[in-house]
């Protein structure tokens, strides 16, 4: 997974010819060269994007229907749930409903002895050569045993610029959003972030 570099958001490529045509559409002599106008436009656009990256918050872009799993449940149950919901990971909560960790495919794979980021072919090769497929290791374990903890979390008021930096730095794909009591209220995934950046009109480099 490549890093998201919001610093490289570029404005739509406006040409001097576009500016020239626009100036022609405005009556009267406009006392600026098309090249200078383009420069002003690009700078203003970058500022607008920066402002939106600061003003757009986790609460605005997060998925609010949080599928969370209890830490006591077995890995088989957890895997069944994730498969059912077609998601690759979920926040883990304790009996009070407070967030205590995050469990994802990565944790399952690590537990199976593959390291955190094997390719599908590595897994396939391994399984073909070892009929047990090491899946047996997952029996009788609970989510609490293998989850990533403590969880990296965000608050609903966290700016999306900060979130994308966090994704890149911590190499994570989802950020559980918790309220002041530590209860999960949503999740921001890379997909959510990509949508938000797309709306900003920039080219998100994911």
């Amino acid at each position, binding site marked *: 997974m490549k890093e998201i570099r919001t610093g490289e958001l570029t404005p739509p490529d406006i040409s001097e010819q576009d500016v020239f045509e626009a100036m022609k559409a405005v009556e009267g002599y406009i006392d*600026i060269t098309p090249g200078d106008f383009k420069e002003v436009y690009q700078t203003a656009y970058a500022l607008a994007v920066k402002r939106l990256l600061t003003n757009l918050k986790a609460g605005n872009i997060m998925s609010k229907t949080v599928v969370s799993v209890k830490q006591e449940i077995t890995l088989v149950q957890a895997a069944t749930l994730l498969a059912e919901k077609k998601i690759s990971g979920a926040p883990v909560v304790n009996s009070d409903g407070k967030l205590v960790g995050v469990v994802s495919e990565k944790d399952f794979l690590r537990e199976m002895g593959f390291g955190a980021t094997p390719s599908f072919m590595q897994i396939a090769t391994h399984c073909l050569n070892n009929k047990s497929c090491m899946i047996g290791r997952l029996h009788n374990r609970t989510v609490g045993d293998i989850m990533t903890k403590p969880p990296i979390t965000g608050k609903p008021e966290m700016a999306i610029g900060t979130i994308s930096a966090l994704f890149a730095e911590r190499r994570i794909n989802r950020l559980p959003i918790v309220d002041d009591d530590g209860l999960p209220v949503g999740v921001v995934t890379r997909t959510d972030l990509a949508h938000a950046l797309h709306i900003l009109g920039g080219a998100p480099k994911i």
Partner: protein
Amino acid sequence: MNYFQKMRGGGQSPPKVGLAEVLWSWLGSFLGLAAVSLLHFNVLDQTGLMMIIGSFGASAVLIYGAIRSPLAQPRNLLGGHILSAIIGVTAFQWLGFQPWLAAAVAVSTSIALMHLTRTLHPPGGATALIAVIGGESVHNLGYLYVVIPTALGAGVMLIVALLINNISKSRRYPEFWF
């Protein structure tokens, strides 16, 4: 871009304006200059005063021909002319024994002052220069040069600009006052 590459330019000129803009520019500048010239030749000429200076021709380009320009707004028109006139007269009175120095100081200091006061108006540079090189009739005015012709003439031209530049639906003047 290095020093010599910069000299090649490479940008492009803004588009040519429409015919309507040309005609409004012509009409505004005709009436503006007509107003100050009439006052000059028919009222003030006999009194040794003057109403018209060369820099008004340059102001006309801006306030009738490029009315959206920040340089053409009332703050710049009045501020630029008046401040430059003060600098010009002062430069002549202090440095008039070396006319080349007085001329250079008048124009350069006017530009600096107009920048600092956000009143940049290119004809202001001419107003300052005329205070030095305008001959006896200008020198005799002393600081009156700031009021008549400079402030009064610029004021008359401004009134004509307000009256003419707002007739057309697609024209508006000023963009801002101060």
